[in-house]
Each structure stands twice: as structure tokens, then as C-alpha cells.
């Protein structure tokens, strides 16, 4: 259930170009958050909250880690927040990644600031003894983050658009060279998700979507996506942000 919670910033640091990692302290969210869920963060002076996905949770330490990219006025403001500050957040919001207990090998495909929710998922799956393969795409070397963290979970391939780090190209360029996997999970820019679902149309997979949100709780119908059968729609904030790759039209 979504609560309105006060979270305390324990630390905030830059981990890549315009990319920040913030560790938050909150009992309720740290006990209930699942991989794929997000926090809807109130930013002082702004009408709308900002949805930021959860990158990690430590239930013992009661901490939640979020990663975000400084893009517009809202994330610029959040980037200035200092440890000790208390934030007003709604969370944990949305539905997380569906995990099939029969899957033994999973592929994580992240693009840019779509990488963070996959880390929380990968850590959870690795703990359950599953084999993790990760393909992470970034614009260039200075945008790369969490390489070591993903390597600790399993085989990790980094690609950059300009080739300044890892392999040159897009995540889809290396997908052919991977071995068998039971399921993929992906989060990143829409063109990347479209390319992936087109390359492996029959593969079981789940994608996490991003959209400009209003209420963030399913009431305002701002962040909807048509279903694959075009007979309806899903609310990204409430029904998602994670969907089966076959469920929605990208």
C-alpha cells in the first residue's frame, strides 16, 4: 500500500555525469518496497511530484537508494538536497517486476537512467540463486555507473553509443551474442524498449515504462498506455510501471 511518508536523506553524491545517488532512511518503505516500484517525491516549489524508481533497499538498515538524472527543474532541485533533509514521498508506488519461480537465467537490459530499478531486481534475483546476465547501455564513458555493482551479480556487458567505454553501439547490438535465458527485464528509453521487443518478440520479458505523471496513484489518467489488443489502456503509475512486453503497445 502507498503511504505518505517522511524520509530522511542520509547521503547524496554524484556517481556519473548529471547522475546522482541518494540514500534515504524510512522504516515503512524499506520494509515494503519491491523491485520495480518507485517513490513519488514532493519537490518544494513544484506543483507535481517527481516519480523516481527505487534502485536498492536494505530492510535491516531501513534504507532506500534512489538514482536520478539531473534533467529539468525538479531533478535539478533534488540534486541540491543535502543529508539530514527530510523529504515528503508517496510510496512504495506501482507494481514491481513479476518474478517467475521457474526462471533460472535472467537477462537485465538497462539504458541510461533506466538502469537503477534493474539493480534492485538483479540483487533480489541473485539472492534467490538465479543466474544474472546484464547488458547496460550508456551514452558515453562519463555516463556509466554501477558497473561494479552489476558485475557482482553476474556477467555484465557495458555498451556506450560512442564506444568510449565497453563495447560500441546499442544494447541490442550485443543481444545476439548472449546465451540462453528464460526471461528478460528491461528499462530505458522508449526507442530501446521498442527495439528489444521487436528483436525478441516471442521471448518472455517485462519492461518498465516512464511517463510524465500527475497524481501518481491512478486517479488522473495522465500516464496511460494502450494495451497490445488496442481494446483498452493501462495506467503506468498504478498498473505499471512494469508490464509484460506483450501487454502494451509501445
Amino acid at each position: 500500500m502507498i503511504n505518505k511518508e517522511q524520509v530522511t536523506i542520509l547521503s547524496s553524491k554524484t556517481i556519473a555525469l548529471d547522475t546522482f545517488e541518494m540514500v534515504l532512511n524510512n522504516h515503512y518503505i524499506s520494509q515494503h518496497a519491491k523491485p520495480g516500484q518507485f517513490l513519488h517525491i514532493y519537490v518544494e516549489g513544484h506543483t507535481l511530484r517527481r516519480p523516481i524508481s527505487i534502485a536498492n533497499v536494505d530492510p535491516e538498515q531501513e534504507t532506500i537508494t534512489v538514482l536520478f538524472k539531473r534533467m529539468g527543474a525538479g531533478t535539478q532541485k533534488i540534486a541540491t538536497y543535502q543529508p539530514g533533509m527530510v523529504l515528503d514521498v508517496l510510496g512504495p508506488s506501482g507494481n514491481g517486476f513479476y518474478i517467475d519461480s521457474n526462471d533460472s537465467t535472467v537477462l537485465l537490459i538497462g539504458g541510461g537512467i533506466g538502469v537503477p530499478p534493474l539493480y534492485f531486481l538483479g540483487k533480489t534475483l541473485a539472492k534467490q540463486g538465479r543466474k544474472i546476465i546484464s547488458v547496460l547501455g550508456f551514452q558515453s564513458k562519463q555516463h556509466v555507473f554501477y558497473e561494479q555493482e552489476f558485475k557482482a551479480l553476474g556477467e555484465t556487458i557495458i555498451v556506450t553509443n560512442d564506444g568510449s567505454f565497453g563495447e560500441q553501439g546499442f544494447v541490442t547490438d550485443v543481444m545476439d551474442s548472449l546465451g540462453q535465458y528464460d526471461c528478460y527485464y528491461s528499462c530505458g528509453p522508449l526507442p530501446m524498449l521498442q527495439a528489444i521487443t521487436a528483436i525478441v518478440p516471442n521471448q518472455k520479458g517485462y519492461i518498465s515504462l516512464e511517463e510524465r505523471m500527475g497524481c501518481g496513484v491512478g486517479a488522473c489518467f495522465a500516464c496511460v498506455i494502450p494495451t497490445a489488443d488496442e481494446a483498452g489502456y493501462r495506467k503506468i503509475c498504478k498498473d505499471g510501471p512494469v508490464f509484460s512486453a506483450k501487454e502494451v503497445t509501445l
Partner: protein
Amino acid sequence: MSQLAVNLPGLNLKNPIMPASGCFGFGREYSEFYDLSKLGAIIMKAATGSERFGNRTPRVAETASGMLNAIGLQNPGVENIIKHEVPFLANYNTSVIANVAGSTLEEYEHVAAAFNDTEHVHALELNISCPNVKEGGIQFGTDPEMAARVTEAVKRASNLPVYVKLSPNVSDILSMAKAVEDAGADGLSMINTITGMQIHLPSGKPLLANKTGGLSGPAIKPVAIRMIYEVSQEVSIPIIGMGGITTAEDVLEFLLAGASAVAVGTANFQNPFVCVEIIDELPHVLSKYGYESITDVIGKGVSV
């Protein structure tokens, strides 16, 4: 009558606070945050004759002290709303107002008449002012003659009190208000959103897929106050006021301008508890400014 109560046509409100149409869905999501029986009333999301999927995304954009939206009246259609949503709201001890929208006169009549079959809807809000759909809505809301025609038609079709929701996107709000009053409206609700646009700098194009959207939030509050102040002096039907209300002080300002009750919209997105927090705060604000009750305040700011 208790300090916060207000009686309006069809609506015996225990307090003057209700969530605005389109900002609260059909109440389900916010019922997980608090008991909806605390609300004076609930205005449901717009109903049209059949299901509508609305506009493409992005549908919202933040602005200074507000936001633009272009949802496009997405809703499951009036039959579905009566079958699945009204029964849910009937579980709560609060008044229910149905927002009626359409593309044609006939669709407005059809939707309005459909609500005659349920005893759990207490009034209609006639949406002649949605700026975000290609046809219908706004053209009924910017021409006094068209507004009067749709009001008459809906009054004939419905057995419920009808509050006509006025658009601020007109040069003469008074003639609109008078036209619908003469056509039989039981009340007014005002204001709907103000048409606006935002250009997204990285793409150089309008941010909203619909290009234009309706501006809401604190940015439009002074426009709402001005229009309610002008209209309340010239009509004798009650006004449900709305436009950027965030605090109990804002509510007092709307009542002073001549509103008899208010709706809270955009503020729900920022704080899901805003309606109940305002209700709890209202008695303190009344006493701070020397008023005994809500009815004591209504129209006090209008110099006659």
C-alpha cells in the same frame, strides 16, 4: 446546522469541500488514503455516452505554480460508471455529483438521463467547458446561446439539480452565467481550466501531445476569484468555486468572493490528504477571521 454545513440544491453538505472532477477519478485511489465520508461531496470524473480513451501522452506538464493537462475526457462511459463506480461511492456518507460531458446535444441528454436511474447521484455538473477534446465541450461553453440550449436540454432530460461548469476562456463570463441561469441551471461551478501551452526546449515543440492543455493550480486562483466575484453579484443561483485551492485560507477567499462551496483539484496530486486537511483546518480559519460558520462567510467580500 453545524458550523461547516451548507445546503445547496440537491446537496446537503456537511462541509463545503469536494474534490474537483477529473482530479479524483471515481474516488477509489484516494479511498486508500482516507475515509471518503469525510468529504462534503465528490465530483466524479466526466462521463460521456460511450467509452473514451482520451489523448496521446504526454498529457500533463508542470508550469510555474500550476500545471497543464490534456487528458481528453478519458472515461469508461456512463453505463459502466453507473454500474461499477457509483455503487462504490454509495458506500460512503457523502454527496455524489456526476460530471456530464458530450460531443453533441443528444449525447449530453443521453448521459444526463442515464443518471436518473441511480439514487446515489445527487446532482449533475454539466461540463460545457472542457478545453481538451476536439469536438463538443468547449464550443457549448463559449457561446451563451449554445450554453443555454444544452442547459435546457439537460434540465429536461434529468430529474437532478444541474450545476453548469463555466469556462474562463471567454471574454464575457457574465453573459455566460446569466444565459445558463435563464435556461434553468440550479447552480454554477467555476472555473474550469484556462487554455495554455508549453514549448519543450530540447525538442522545440509543444510538450503536450495535444499541443494545448488546461492550466490549473494556484496560478489561476486570482482569475477564479475575480470571475466568481463578478458573477455572484449578478446571478441568484449558488456557485461551487474552484481554481487553485490549496489551503483553508483559499477556501475562505472563494467564499468571500461569493462561492457557496468549493472544489479542490490539482492540489490532490501534490498532497493526497489535502481535502481532509482543509476540512480540519477550516474551523480555525473561520474563527481566526471572526466568522461563526461557513454560511456566515458566503458573499461577505462582495460590496453591493
